[in-house]
């Protein structure tokens, strides 16, 4: 029987749909035309402009500071929350579960506004600190959910076995539980990191004058600056992501 070609066409259509925009951005980043559109010749100008723009580097630094710190804190808190959800099955845990789930389903704009009102009413000046707190708030939920997934297959008797063999509870956590959870913790952390890196809506509400992050800066560049520089920036970010994914895959394969 002749195989149907239909799946192939669908696959090609999806690939085009996904990657054509990126390819266009890639091409435009080398286009000498100031506003994109028609091809006016090949140039590296936009990359030079990008590297000499101090504001971009400042925004990138802000973004990385917030992403790293909020990931770090939310991984710790999220893992602890996941442990509590896994270990203790009381009535209170039902509400705990709902509370953890809530930030995943609540619209970003609502969360942004409520956090803004919260910070203003507490008279906390808007800036890196408020962005950090806001990012931790939603990242905890993602980390907790991913780590909880890993916990579902966790057999608590291996913790008891460790205690039984003379380990203290903390040693058992360090040597047995955390290594077991590590894939979940890493995945949750990665998720939190990416979410923090490109969050726009919530950050928009809680950022202050000197705490512009990269997504906010890109948005303002779209309106006031040069779209072509953004194209160049986008290409670098895609390349960076690609390299990171590639390396982590290689590392995982080596471990197998």
């Amino acid at each position, binding site marked *: 029987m002749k195989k149907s070609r239909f799946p192939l066409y669908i696959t090609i259509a999806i690939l085009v749909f996904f990657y054509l925009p990126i390819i266009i951005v890639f091409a435009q980043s080398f286009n000498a035309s100031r506003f994109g559109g028609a091809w006016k010749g090949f140039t590296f100008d936009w990359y030079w402009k990008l590297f000499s723009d101090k504001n971009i580097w400042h925004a990138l630094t802000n973004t990385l500071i917030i992403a790293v710190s909020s990931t770090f804190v939310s991984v710790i808190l999220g893992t602890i929350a996941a442990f509590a959800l896994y270990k203790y099955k009381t009535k209170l845990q039902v509400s705990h579960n709902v509370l953890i789930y809530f930030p995943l389903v609540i619209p970003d704009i609502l969360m942004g506004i409520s956090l803004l009102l919260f910070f203003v009413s507490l008279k906390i000046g808007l800036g890196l600190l408020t962005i950090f707190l806001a990012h931790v708030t939603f990242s905890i939920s993602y980390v907790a959910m991913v780590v909880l997934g890993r916990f579902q297959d966790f057999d608590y*008797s291996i913790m*008891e076995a*460790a*205690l039984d*063999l*003379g*380990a203290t509870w903390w040693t058992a956590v360090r040597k047995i539980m955390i290594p077991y959870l590590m894939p979940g913790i890493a995945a949750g952390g990665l998720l939190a990191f990416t979410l923090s890196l490109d969050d726009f809506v919530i950050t928009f509400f809680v950022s202050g004058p000197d705490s512009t992050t990269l997504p906010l800066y890109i948005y303002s560049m779209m309106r006031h600056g040069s779209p072509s520089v953004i194209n160049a920036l986008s290409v670098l970010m895609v390349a960076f992501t690609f390299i990171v994914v590639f390396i982590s895959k290689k590392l995982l394969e080596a471990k197998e």
Partner: protein
Amino acid sequence: MDDFLILDGISKSFGKHKVLDNISLTVKKGEIFSFLGPSGCGKTTLLRICAGFEEPDSGRVILNGVDITKLSPNKRQVNTVFQNYALFPNLSVFENIAFGLRVSGIKESQLNDEVGKFLELIQLTSHAHKKPDKLSGGQKQRVAIARALINKPNVLLLDEPLAALDLKLRQRMLVDLDNIHDEVGITFLYVTHDQSEAMSLSDNIAVINEGKVEQVGTPAQIYEAPRTSFVAAFIGDTNFFEGDVIEVDEPYSKLRVDGFTEVLAYNDKKIKKGDKVHISIRPEKFTLSIEKPDLSEKYNSIKGKVEEIIYLGYHTKYWVRVNEFLVETKRLHDRYMLDEKMITWGDEIWLSWHADYCYRLWQSLKAKLKKRRTSYK
């Protein structure tokens, strides 16, 4: 010291459900002691109390003369082999076994020697660097045992260690366990719901039902002389009869069993005329014959009709109708002598059994507990 591990009046409830009800047991040094009972009888909870994972509501656990009831698991000189092995998935076989020693902070060279010794004991030296998920069920179990033994515990607790293995492997592991026990000489506390495991391994068995100890004794005592109907029914097959004592002639008495016959029974417990008694007779204690056998007066003999025969290879079961009773009997061969006529369905045959094979059961649990209490002190 003879009484090595003493459980003294242990009770434990989970919510309203009373799991253990005033359990008192003593385990001798170096023996294999089994908790035997159906699932949900509380035997695992009792083991977890010994390990320190649960604290009893009342009662004490005394190990080697020291009260360890409130001691946390990592401070107790007992180690556990878990039902599902509970090996550390992120550590190799070597590191799993070494875990207890590493935690205690032993020198590296000494650690290698010790772990090597135990790897040899469980014959897994060539698998030392594999992760647990690359091992078979039997190998995992052996690693779990070595891991628990390496700290040289006073008592090794085994929680249904063979339940996850198939029959052939289980039989092999039973022999292995027995050999390991001979080798290390540590007291084993063995929890199982499988009577044949308990019988073949144990020096002593405690039969537990609904949080109470039904009987403590050697495998032979438990099987041959069950104290309660639960023990008689749980360990092997049996026939129950309820009768009235009509005549006592020590050490025997005559009982009338309604719907059956008059039975001559040995008085293994004190008895008087007019008592209502329950007795159990094991199926293999009956002798089946086509002719009326010529036996001493201590034998009971009665005629019955074969209603059902089940051939099971190494033995055959016969259900024989005697008046209102259907008596379960079994014998090793379908006939004793090759030139004897084979028993078939509908045959009228004679059932004979010695008076000593009738065991009186203690029906009243309260009376039994009282008796146990006085015998302990």
